[in-house]
């Protein structure tokens, strides 16, 4: 297939591939582009972690070759001539401070916490303390995924509204009473925060892939339907969606979907 050609480096690709969007995809895209650039030394792949909203827009107005979204495209976006290709699935881990005694929450409890119905950790089995909800800026794919699944759309009462996945992790790490949501890929391996089980199911690649972990969403590459990508961008796109990328994606903490 084409990507194996690239790997062989027979076709000397050159140029620049710009990607722009989801901050949750930081790890995944970071790993993919790095490998791709090792394989194709003539190509530079850039990644601007700006958020899913502007990633989708960047793809549509052409300021980036490939947009990155951590939520599925909406119908109206598709109608506007955008095409989404899922590269991976990602769990949205519900994270609490490493010192928290809470280990499991149901989706309903999570929803009540974020909408302000439950305000103290003692109500969900933790040590008493006012819960601090940390969420994402509107426009974030992670927020979109979280709110749709927990049915809390536009109803969350947040203590902090941060512009990035890492920001949420840091804020939860620094606050014993905090709860937040963040991409599984970014949470894996962190010791300062821990992911609670949701309805008894831990957030892992396996549970995301088999669907037993409910709070999940896709990582999407956004392109303009009909428009042709530059050879370099096309090669990167093909590489990212190929099985060859699966290990990279897995190592980055997400769940590859390529068959």
């Amino acid at each position, binding site marked *: 297939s084409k990507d194996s050609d690239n790997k062989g480096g027979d076709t000397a690709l050159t140029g620049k591939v710009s990607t722009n969007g989801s901050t949750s995809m930081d790890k995944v895209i970071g790993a993919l582009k790095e490998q791709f650039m090792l394989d194709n030394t003539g190509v530079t792949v850039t990644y601007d972690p700006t958020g899913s909203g502007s990633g989708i827009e960047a793809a549509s107005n052409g300021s980036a070759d490939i947009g990155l979204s951590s939520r599925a495209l909406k119908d109206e976006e598709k109608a506007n001539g955008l095409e989404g290709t899922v590269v991976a699935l990602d769990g949205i881990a519900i994270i609490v401070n490493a010192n928290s005694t809470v280990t499991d929450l149901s989706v309903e409890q999570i929803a009540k916490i974020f909408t302000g119905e439950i305000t103290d950790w003692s109500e969900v089995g933790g040590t008493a303390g006012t819960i601090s909800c940390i969420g994402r*800026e509107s426009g974030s794919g992670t927020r979109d995924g979280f709110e749709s699944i927990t049915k809390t*759309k*536009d109803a969350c009462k947040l203590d*902090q509204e941060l*512009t990035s996945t890492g920001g949420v992790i840091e804020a939860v790490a620094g*606050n014993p009473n905090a709860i937040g949501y963040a991409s599984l890929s970014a949470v894996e391996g962190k010791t300062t925060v821990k992911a609670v089980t949701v309805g008894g199911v831990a957030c892992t690649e396996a549970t995301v892939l088999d669907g037993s972990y409910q709070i999940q969403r896709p990582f999407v590459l956004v392109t303009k339907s009909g428009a042709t990508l530059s050879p370099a961008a096309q090669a990167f796109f093909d590489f990212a969606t190929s099985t060859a990328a699966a290990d990279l994606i897995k190592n980055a903490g997400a769940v590859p979907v390529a068959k």
Partner: protein
Amino acid sequence: MTAESLTVGGTVRKRRGAREAHKAVEGGIQVAFLLCGTLTVGFVLLISIYLILSGLPAIRQIGLADFLFGRVWDPTNATTGAEFGILPFILTSIYGTAGAVVLGVPVGLLTAVYLAKIAPPKVAVAIRTAVQLLAGIPSVVYGLVGMIVLVPAIQRTFSLSSGACLLAAMIVLAIMILPSIINVAENALRAVPKEYEEASLALGATKLETYFKVTLPAAGSGVAAAIVLGMGRAIGEAMAIIMVSGNVSNMPSIFAPVRFLTTGIVSGMGYAQVGSLYHQALFSIGLVLFLFIMLINVLLNVLIKKKGDA
């Protein structure tokens, strides 16, 4: 001797061409420098025009009153409809600036008095160097330290659910405006005629009484200018406070996570779709911020002019 001789270089006729080329060069250079000079004016116009052009459409669509006085900012709410009220941002910016002034001005003025009147020259030089350094530290560094040190400290001290709040931003801003307040105020204090102090001392006032009851009031407009300058800095700061203020578009209160005009722009910019009303509204916020700054500039000019008159 003919008229020509003076104009083209007298006896050395072969230089006539060179002379004329030289004259052209002189003219060209003057025009080039003029262009450089007017470029600054061009930049100011560019900024004003772009902000107005890109800020007005959203305001027109949202409605000026709803935009300025709306209490809810929820630009992507699909359930109940998006809302674009920036009153929380405006008030937060005002409160935050006021807080920074309340915290920073006393410390700044006291330091200025110390530097201008009390400190031994060598100590004064050392402190002045320190103050300059404080002014040069990048704002993200303030934000970083605020995020790692100040925010947890506030949370623990006041047993809050989260320490990222208006107070944290006020403290960071207060520290950031210190250098400009100290500098301007110190200069103003030094400019107060010695006669005022002599008169006060001759009446039996102590030095400190003199500094606070005569010198400081006499430096009034300069001190005011220092404060206004600090206000301008505070209201325009973005990157330091985005890291400590919680970033939720609440109406301001001291322990609430809040969003400023500046941080509203920064955090929205990554997520708003270009061309959407949300995106356009961010430029409208920019326009409002710009108007605030212009107001402060005018104030500053008035104060400086007053100082010039006195």
